[in-house]
């Protein structure tokens, strides 16, 4: 499913300073999250992963190790940039100062993908979490306006990720799927399909994750995220929490296979933010995703 990505990243596409051919591994091999603890091992061992993904907000300083190592690693690998702070779903206007810094990073790094979330995180102050939005017409229009600003400013199509949520709004007028489908149609944005978020949200709202995938507008999907979750300890409603601090669990791997059936072969990320293991454990998870993709697509293609 690479049609979203095959469009030129910018109308004024410039000659890339990075080695050519790198983008192929983004399409063919699963990537992992880039964390400071992995900088040295990556440069020393050059693990066989397809790409690395960074959170934009961790790479906006003028200098320091984050900037340096990201550029070093970019010489050898494709990179995807994942925004966690643009507050696309917020009622307030996009923070243009922040967007300028993000745009500069995107210009410098030339990622394969820039993605953000269907969520809000800023209202006067930044709340450092991905907060849910109501699925009504007013919010849909606001979200599309924000995506327009983002895509115009970055001069590229962005991917927007389906959220993990812990409650549903009474005021919602449509399903999450209908909201996402219409958001993508109106704004022209692509979608980042987070399989763990489907598992988490569907569990928390008593929905069937396979039915959710069945209805998802997979034609717009440009990337898949896989991650782990934890279960909340409250006895009343045992909620699943999108914690990114565990290996990808079996239920998410199973759902991933179904996602591939629906969406086709798709660039995939093993996403890990907390309780970080040795890098090789994430590389092994990436290889597991590769072998699932190989079994499904390469062998299938020969038959």
């Amino acid at each position, binding site marked *: 499913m690479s049609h979203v990505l095959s469009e030129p990243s910018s109308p004024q596409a410039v000659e890339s300073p990075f080695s050519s051919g790198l983008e192929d591994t983004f399409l063919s091999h699963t990537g992992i999250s880039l964390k400071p603890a992995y900088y040295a091992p990556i440069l020393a061992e050059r693990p066989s992963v397809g790409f690395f993904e960074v959170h934009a907000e*961790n790479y906006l300083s*003028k200098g320091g190790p*984050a900037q340096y190592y990201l550029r070093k690693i970019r010489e050898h690998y494709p990179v995807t940039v994942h925004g966690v702070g643009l507050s696309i779903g917020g009622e307030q206007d996009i923070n243009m100062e922040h967007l300028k810094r993000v745009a500069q990073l995107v210009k410098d790094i030339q990622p394969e993908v820039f993605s953000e979330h269907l969520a809000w995180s800023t*209202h006067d102050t930044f*709340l*450092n979490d991905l907060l849910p939005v109501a699925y009504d017409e007013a919010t849909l229009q606001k979200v599309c306006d924000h995506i327009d600003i983002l895509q115009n400013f970055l001069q590229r199509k962005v991917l927007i990720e389906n959220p993990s949520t812990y*409650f*549903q709004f009474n005021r919602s007028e449509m399903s999450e799927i209908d909201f996402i489908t219409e958001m993508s149609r109106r704004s022209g944005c692509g979608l980042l399909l987070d399989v763990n978020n489907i598992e988490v949200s569907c569990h928390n709202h008593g929905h069937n994750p396979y039915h959710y995938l069945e209805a998802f507008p997979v034609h717009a999907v440009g990337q898949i995220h896989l991650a782990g979750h934890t279960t909340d300890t409250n006895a*009343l409603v045992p909620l699943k929490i999108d914690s990114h601090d565990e290996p990808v669990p079996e239920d998410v791997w199973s759902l991933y296979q179904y996602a591939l059936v629906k969406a086709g072969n798709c660039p995939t990320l093993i996403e890990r933010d907390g309780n970080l293991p040795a890098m090789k454990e994430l590389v092994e998870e990436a290889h597991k995703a590769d072998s699932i993709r190989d079994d499904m697509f390469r062998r299938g293609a020969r038959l």
Partner: protein
Amino acid sequence: MNKLFKAALFSDDTGFYNEMSAATLAEQEARMNVYRNNVVVSLVDALGDIFPVSRTVVGEEFFHAMARVYVMENQPNSPVISEYGGNFSDFIRQFEPAKGVPFLADLAALEYAMLTLTNSEEFETLEHEAISQAFSSVEDPSGLTLSLPPTTQILESPFALGSLYRAHFSDDQQSLNQIDINKAEYLLLVKSHLYSQLHVLSRDEALFIKGLTQNKNLEEALPESETFDLGEVLAKLIQWKVITAIT
């Protein structure tokens, strides 16, 4: 509605709950608590990462309780979380339960300055060979001017914060125990190749390096002191790799 949601995150206020689809008040509470926990814990953890020495000095429990009070009133102005906590030291200075650790506010300010310096722009520094070449190319080196990165700072601390900070990162428990925290120190904060460095200076060294940062040449920067050893200080600056130019 974002405003009401936000108010619910930082209070027990149930005003927002009628927006939530849930069977009972207890269920609304349980669902909202996930967001309360995500927001507050992630910001408290961020402060712990930004102020690791302060956290160690007062202990996890005290630090978390203090950071929690701060977070409830002071959320980040920017999504760049490494810039969070710019006024944490001011908060600590006014925070009654921290009064028993009189150096804590200064320590937090120092930690913030060190992180900010690490994340600041890079300046290329000279290699040993270039430095010896510059010195050997003139007959009288006393007229040379040594430049340090413009982000370099000299601080005078009423507490032994440089020793405390360095001991923390060297994991040297013994030197940590030997620190007399009430001993005043001169500190050099300087950046070389990606990372900020913190050095404890004598008064003469501090005066001399301060002079260098004011573009004085070696002779002009010399402190009036019998015991000042120019060679020793130059050796340190060379070893720390912080000289950006010699003119």
